[in-house]
């Protein structure tokens, strides 16, 4: 693994205002992402996991500026892309691409597969005429689809095939970094494996860097070099995937890992599960201090008073917890 940092996120915050009316002056907001920081190295896969509604997708979308962040810095190759204007951003969009979660919603039903994949070629003036057609065929073959299907419409394909089309679309601009926004969670298990293996092959062949957003821990373990665990818009633990699964330090990570089923009924019956009490607090009105304290088995007084920083606990193992 090369150590060159390709993407650096510093204190990224994204709040969504609620009920924005003419007369209402009270500004409630959804605290979707509350200051996350991480680095992404060239050629690695960073898994971003957490339960539904913890801000993983929002984080991904904010990094690529589909949402304008409330505050924070996103540095791509050393430059803050959040200050870029539309024209400068267009150049960045050739390098950072995204794969979406829902293969049924992420393809325009009124466009042929060829036009869907070729759209970026038109936007960035990369290829025209015969060259464009050739490039589309090449991309279809790269993701294991039949080039004859270029004139078909998305509804004629299965979920797995559609996800491949989505991947071909993101590859069309030769990106360096791909944000995978739960690319496999809408697919069934056998197809998941196909897509994940294909993503790994593509990474090797094209030298891609992935930010892999998911909630399926076993799949993330398989594909990621490092994993960041999110809870209510904050990263609570960040380390390499081996360490995270063997020696999780944060109580939330420990609870998450204990929830993974083990495919052996004897072990499964014998082991003690760590079950969290209660529900995730509302992101509209998050608790003070450590967001996890309301459900944490180890919570102390200090947890309500101050927010724990993400601190290195030896060898690139970062944890945000007062009780370690």
């Amino acid at each position, binding site marked *: 693994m090369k150590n060159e940092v390709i993407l650096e996120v510093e204190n990224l915050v994204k709040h969504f205002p609620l009920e924005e009316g003419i007369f209402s002056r009270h500004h409630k907001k959804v605290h979707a992402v509350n200051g996350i920081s991480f680095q992404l190295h060239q050629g690695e896969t960073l898994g971003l996991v957490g339960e539904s509604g913890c801000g993983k997708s929002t984080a991904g979308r904010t990094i690529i500026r589909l949402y304008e962040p409330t505050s924070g810095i996103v540095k791509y190759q050393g430059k803050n892309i959040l200050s870029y204007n539309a024209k400068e951003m267009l150049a960045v969009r050739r390098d950072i691409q995204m794969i979406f*979660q829902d293969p049924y919603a992420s393809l325009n039903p009124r466009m042929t597969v060829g036009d869907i994949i070729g759209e970026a070629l038109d936007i960035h003036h990369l290829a025209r005429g015969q060259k464009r057609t050739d490039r589309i065929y090449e991309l279809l073959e790269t993701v294991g689809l039949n080039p004859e299907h270029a004139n078909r419409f998305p509804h004629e394909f299965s979920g797995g095939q559609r996800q491949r089309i989505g991947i071909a679309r993101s590859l069309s601009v030769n990106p360096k970094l791909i944000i995978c926004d739960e690319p496999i969670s809408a697919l069934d298990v056998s197809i998941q494996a196909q897509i994940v293996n294909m993503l790994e092959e593509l990474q090797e062949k094209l030298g891609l860097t992935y930010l892999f957003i998911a909630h399926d821990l076993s799949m993330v373990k398989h594909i990621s070099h490092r994993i960041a665990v999110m809870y209510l818009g904050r990263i609570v633990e960040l380390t390499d995937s081996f360490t995270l699964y063997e020696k999780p330090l944060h109580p939330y990570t420990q609870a998450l890992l204990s929830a993974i089923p083990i495919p052996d009924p004897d072990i499964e019956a014998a082991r003690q599960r760590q079950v969290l009490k209660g529900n995730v607090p509302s992101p509209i009105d998050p608790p003070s201090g450590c967001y996890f304290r309301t459900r944490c088995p180890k919570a102390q007084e200090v947890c309500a008073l101050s927010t724990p920083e993400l601190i290195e606990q030896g060898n690139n193992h970062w944890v945000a917890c007062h009780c370690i």
Partner: protein
Amino acid sequence: MSISVESFSPLQQGLKAEGINRPSTTLWQDAWRRFRKNPLAMGGLTVLALIILFALFGPFFSQFDYKTNNLMATNQYPNWIHPFGTDELGRDILTRSMFGARISLLIGFGSVAINLTIGIFYGGISGYKGSWLDNFMQRIVDIIFSIPDLLYVILLMVTFGPGLRNIFIVLGLVNWVPMARIVRGQILTLREQEFVLAARTLGADTKRILIKHLLPNSIGQIIIVAALQIPAAIFMEAFLSFIGLGVQAPMVSLGSMASDGRMNIPSYPYSLIFPAAMIALLMLAFNFVGDGLRDAFDPKMRK
């Protein structure tokens, strides 16, 4: 029971497992297939086609025109020379109906073309840009919407004065409002779809997203609204002509013919019946076609 291994053989290699055999169908083909199965809609379409032929080509086969008086043949009941009879100035009502239907169709299609242009533009920008601009644009729409159409139309017609051109302008000014609302609603739901996010990630600008992604996906709804606005516009014109604010003599429309005929109901009822029947037929045909289009483009909306 045991099954021997020999009874299995490997699948022939190189078969195209991912092949698609079903012929590719577009939105239009699907819609047409559903439309064809709807007898009311097909009936409406047939009647509509006949009326259009009647209005466009009928006058070429008629020996009369719509404005020349013939005082030797006033107020004739329907007969072989004048199948629909003649009015008090001896003009052939059949020929006048053809010209009247022409005006009605022109108004119907023309005013919808105008409100499509304004409605799509306005609704598209309002829906896609969102936030305060959307809020502002929608409040304008609300204000226009809150005034009864009829009052608004009559007021504008009185201000602009009667005439064909002014009917176009006034109907265009009124009817774009529901169109803009529909377009905005469609765009609001579509713009958060992942394929739009994907296009933005690829670097598509607003114009491209609207034209390539949002509008093509709203086209079904737009056609449905447009198809149901045509008869409304035709009726509005007939109504304006009926109360004397529409097309002016010697130009003729179905509404002004009905208005002329109204005076003579006791003695010459046919002079009202034929134009009124034409209006009714047009309205029915357009409404059936409109309903058929709605079912064809959006099967879920049926019932």
